[in-house]
């Protein structure tokens, strides 16, 4: 009995710093943000709530609601493209590259992580520009008669995101693939499955936790990102983080910025709920 109490005390002591950290730097600020989201602006002053006006405006004002739609469209597009590119890449590294070269291959795959996110975005701005290497190449080989606009469009934002998130997904899927016992694939082939059937019916389902984990991380990071759409999107449409920055930096409307942030967190929570069944971080 005494030992149990002692162990409990030790457990609480060990967990306490993490709990305090979470309380101080997540729960209290989050509660403050939620509370502030129910306030509203009168002129340039914040008036305490409770007031649901900000939330009503988010879902009834075309420009604000469109921010949610734009964010979801971009994020889902990026997530799907990244998964489609990352899975074969991870497969090749895990299954086709000799063991001794895998580390080097992975290092090359994650190389973009080593450069500044802002610098990488500006680099894409130059690459995708009218006189960038992409247009030079496409017009040079005669595929295009004249340069088309990619920079300052949603496509540029998606390309910038995909470049980053393919790497992230490759890591999570690779980690899942190398944990798979080769016996599963041998058994499938012994039972007459073709190579494609083995991948489709055995390997892909078994790597689903890694894919979903990576996809969820991609979703969360992408929907909350401000830099890439700001630099590459040309401000031709606004995502939720851009709208939040607009409220903070230009309008000084902290209540609306808070409400938009709460909606953003709600979307992430819904995404988590949808993926929870497959989310096994310990497998990654």
């Amino acid at each position, binding site marked *: 009995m005494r030992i149990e109490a002692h162990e409990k005390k030790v457990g609480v002591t060990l967990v306490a710093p993490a709990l305090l950290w979470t309380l101080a730097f997540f729960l209290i600020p989050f509660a403050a943000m939620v509370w*502030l989201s129910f*306030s509203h602006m009168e*002129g340039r002053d914040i008036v305490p709530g409770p007031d649901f006006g900000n939330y009503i405006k988010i879902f009834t004002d075309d420009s604000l609601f469109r921010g949610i739609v734009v964010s979801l469209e971009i994020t889902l597009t990026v997530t799907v493209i990244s998964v489609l590119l990352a899975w074969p890449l991870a497969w090749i590294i895990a299954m086709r590259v000799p063991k001794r070269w895998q580390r080097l291959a992975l290092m090359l795959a994650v190389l973009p992580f080593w450069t500044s996110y802002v610098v990488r975005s500006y680099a894409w*701005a130059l690459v995708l520009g009218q006189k960038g290497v992409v247009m030079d190449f496409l017009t040079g080989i005669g595929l295009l008669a004249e340069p088309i606009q990619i*920079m*300052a469009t949603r496509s540029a934002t998606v390309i910038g995101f995909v470049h980053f998130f393919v790497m992230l997904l490759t890591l999570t899927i690779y980690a899942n693939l190398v944990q798979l016992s080769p016996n599963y694939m041998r058994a499938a082939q012994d039972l007459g499955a073709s190579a494609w059937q083995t991948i489709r019916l055995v390997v892909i389902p078994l790597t689903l936790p890694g894919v979903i984990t990576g996809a969820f991380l991609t979703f969360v990071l992408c929907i909350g990102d401000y830099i890439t759409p700001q630099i590459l999107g040309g*401000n031709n449409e606004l995502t939720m983080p851009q*709208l939040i920055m*607009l409220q903070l*930096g230009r309008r000084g409307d902290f209540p609306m910025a808070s409400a938009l942030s709460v909606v953003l967190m709600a979307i992430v929570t819904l995404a988590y709920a949808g993926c929870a069944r497959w989310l096994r971080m310990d497998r990654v």
Partner: protein
Amino acid sequence: MYLKSTTALTVAALTLAATPSLAAEDLNALIWCDHADPKLLEPFEEAHGIRVNVKEYEGTAAGLALLEQSRPGDWDVMVIDGVDVGRLVERDLAEPLPVEEMHTGDYFPQIVLEDNNTVDGVTYGVTEKFGYNTIAYNKANVDPADMESMKALWSGKYDGRIAIYDYYLPVIGLVGMAQGVDTADLNADNLETLREPLMSLKAASRQVSDVVASQTSLATDEVDILVGGGEWLTAVLNADNPDLDWTIPEEGGLLWSQSLVVLKDSENKEMAVEFVKYVTSPEGQARLATSECYWGMPANSKTADVLSDDEKAVLRWDDQATYLERAQLYPVLDADLDSAMQDLWTDMIQN
């Protein structure tokens, strides 16, 4: 009280990062990027044996948030949009300036801008730099004759080659001027009449961009025209590409100005005033006018004696009398009209 505490928590991270290290020999300044140039700060630091700590901010709302969430006395001076000095005074954050010690007697008369800097007869700010939000363009790709009127922007000739500077006040002001609405007459009623031309302008444009993105786009030929641009944008690029030019079309342009304010809670007011005097002196003005972040006209006309001929040529020193005649001031907005203009701006971007 509760609200204040909540707001404080919300921006705690920002302010913690922004709060300067305090020391008696420090001067702490909330600034725009042009004041971060060592060429401007070092002569003052050496002359007074003091260190100037600077924190850059963008947008008056962000600056006010930083200020209000800092401890009293954290900041000594602040650079602010000329039209927003009154917002500092409203919040009791600005200290009256000993105007007789400033160099305003040597100012271009149109740039003293008493309406901006003075409230109830008390001067709280002093203009330090000004310029124009107008049309910047690449004359290698654009016929300068076309830029003599803003009508060219809606003509279709330059569709897809236009960028819009991402600041609602000057661009809505310019669109208004193109439609015959003076900035001083902007109100909730005539604002709606500007919706259609603003949306058409967006449709003809490639992007809506901040300073860096605008400069990059002009420099890399992504766009050829920047609506809202001016000398502040093209001057720093001039050495690399002399084709990047600017003009004030026949409809006019907007005069922007930035003011320097001593903050009421400053614990080093004497040095803060010295800093204002330095920045508004011809030497300080010359360094500020040609700051590496962006150039702009100095408010003090005696700066002509310090600037080189080349620098004056880039700033169009000799044309200022004509330009000032054709420029209109930024609209001074109440909170409701400001909100309506920002709503319109957001609609423009999202549609």
